[in-house]
């Protein structure tokens, strides 16, 4: 990776509904016909899958210029950074068999080869931009289809290693910042409503991850019985607006009823981040979340969303160790000192 500290373009300061929505993602799962799924495949099978995908026009001719990263050649630090940028999954980073990922130059597209399915291609975009993300990943899908036979059944659709992903094999997700619902203790009700709507609510790094910084990844679980367009419309037009409405109503309620308390929390968070000499990951993420809320509600003007998003990424272990030139296995105490220093400096730069 040539750009270990380059900000990720899908995590900017713009995009529709960016007061609540950090980013949108659309992911497609595909498997090659006639080849065992990754878990049951031999290493020669997995290598063959890598070869077939790499010879496709997606890598050879695509204007987005997907570049190929062989996972075995990456350091732990680089793999961790890719996870933190949401370009690969934890499972994919930790696996120990032939696998690789294709990345576009703008880091908005990634094609994982030999994840749970042979191919998992995904497109990321800032703010609420599910249609844009879908169109971009559909282009990659069509190019792959021109040279690869996917496992497909007229009844079940695209066949996936986990049968619950069958059909369109598509996952729409949005990364939402929900501090209002957290503070008004409404998250439990939202989780129940999400369950009723067949949605998955996960932490910011997907399956199995804890929520941190009031960030939640919401995604559809239904992948069968509707077309991709219908699934997209339902998720984008019915589900997401409902969640945004709840979060904004909660923020408004807090502003109306506990404005001083909220302002106090935001300014204390800023003061702590500007002064702290030791900063843990959870504390840093929590305080940055408070700044993000404060900025969205215009309690503070600076730092802006761009700085806050960049810091949310850079305080994580992979990025922190890369930026500050420390080992990934540095003691947590040392990492906390370095993290505090990085955040202080970044805030001084924008608050001067």
């Amino acid at each position, binding site marked *: 990776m040539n750009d270990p500290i380059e900000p990720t373009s899908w995590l900017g300061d713009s995009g529709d509904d960016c007061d609540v929505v950090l980013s949108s993602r659309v992911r497609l799962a595909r498997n090659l016909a*006639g080849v065992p799924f990754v878990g049951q495949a031999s290493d020669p099978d997995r290598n063959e899958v890598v070869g077939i995908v790499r010879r496709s026009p997606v890598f050879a001719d695509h204007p987005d210029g997907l570049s190929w990263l062989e996972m075995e050649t990456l350091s732990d630090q680089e793999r961790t950074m890719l996870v933190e940028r949401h370009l690969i999954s934890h499972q994919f980073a930790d696996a120990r068999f032939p696998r690789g990922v294709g990345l576009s130059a703008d880091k908005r597209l990634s094609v994982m080869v030999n994840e749970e399915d042979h191919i998992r291609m995904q497109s990321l975009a800032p703010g609420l931009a599910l249609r844009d993300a879908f169109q971009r990943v559909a282009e990659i899908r069509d190019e792959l289809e021109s040279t690869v036979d996917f496992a497909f059944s007229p009844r079940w659709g695209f066949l996936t290693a*986990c049968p619950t992903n069958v*059909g369109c094999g598509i996952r729409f997700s949005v990364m939402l910042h929900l501090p209002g619902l957290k503070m008004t203790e409404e998250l439990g009700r939202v989780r129940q409503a999400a369950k009723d709507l067949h949605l998955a609510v996960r932490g910011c790094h997907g399956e199995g991850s804890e929520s941190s910084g009031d960030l939640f990844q919401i995604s559809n679980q239904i992948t069968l019985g509707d*077309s991709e367009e219908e699934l997209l419309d339902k998720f984008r037009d019915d589900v997401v607006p409902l969640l945004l409405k709840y979060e904004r109503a909660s923020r408004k309620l807090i502003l109306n009823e506990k404005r001083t308390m909220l302002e106090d929390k935001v300014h204390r968070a800023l003061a702590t981040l500007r002064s702290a000499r030791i900063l843990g990951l959870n504390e840093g993420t929590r305080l940055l979340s408070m700044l993000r809320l404060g900025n969205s509600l215009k309690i503070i003007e600076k730092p802006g969303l761009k700085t806050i998003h960049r810091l949310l990424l850079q305080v994580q272990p992979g990025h922190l160790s890369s930026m500050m030139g420390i080992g990934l296995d540095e003691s947590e105490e040392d990492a906390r000192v370095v993290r505090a220093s990085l955040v202080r400096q970044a805030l001084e730069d924008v608050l001067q």
Partner: protein
Amino acid sequence: MEHKCDLCDKPAQVHEVLIKNGQKHEIHLCPECASAQGYGGAAGQLPAKIAKKIPTGEMTPERTAPACENCGLTHAAFRRHGILGCPGCYQAFEKQLEPLISRAQGGATHHCGHVPDQQSGHLDRQLQRTRLLKQLNEAIATEQYERAAKIRDTLHGLSGPLLGEQD
């Protein structure tokens, strides 16, 4: 309570409880006898000596579910991990998968979305055919005729001309 092996007096280490016709039947085997009776191999086949202990009748679907002929995954292994072994598993375990998928998909049972365009011919399709041909020959050589027929059907299903063929 420590059980002795049903077939010898050694301590049993392999235990299985079967519910058939509402009645519970326990099986306890030492590792040697379990191995000799086929435990640890393909699921679905009950050792003859053990089968005698149990009244005749329909087995539960879990026990009678065949292993996938294509990749060898047993239904028990699928239940443990929730991950299928190959595209052929969808056919092998269709009866078990139908209710599972329908439940997970809010009642949906049929694909309504994108259908892949398989009209174009190319190099990688040729590679896949080569691979299937190899599997077909292996299946015939080992007299797995049912598997061979499935591979042949898959081969026929791969559309598009091979490199060097006329469109």
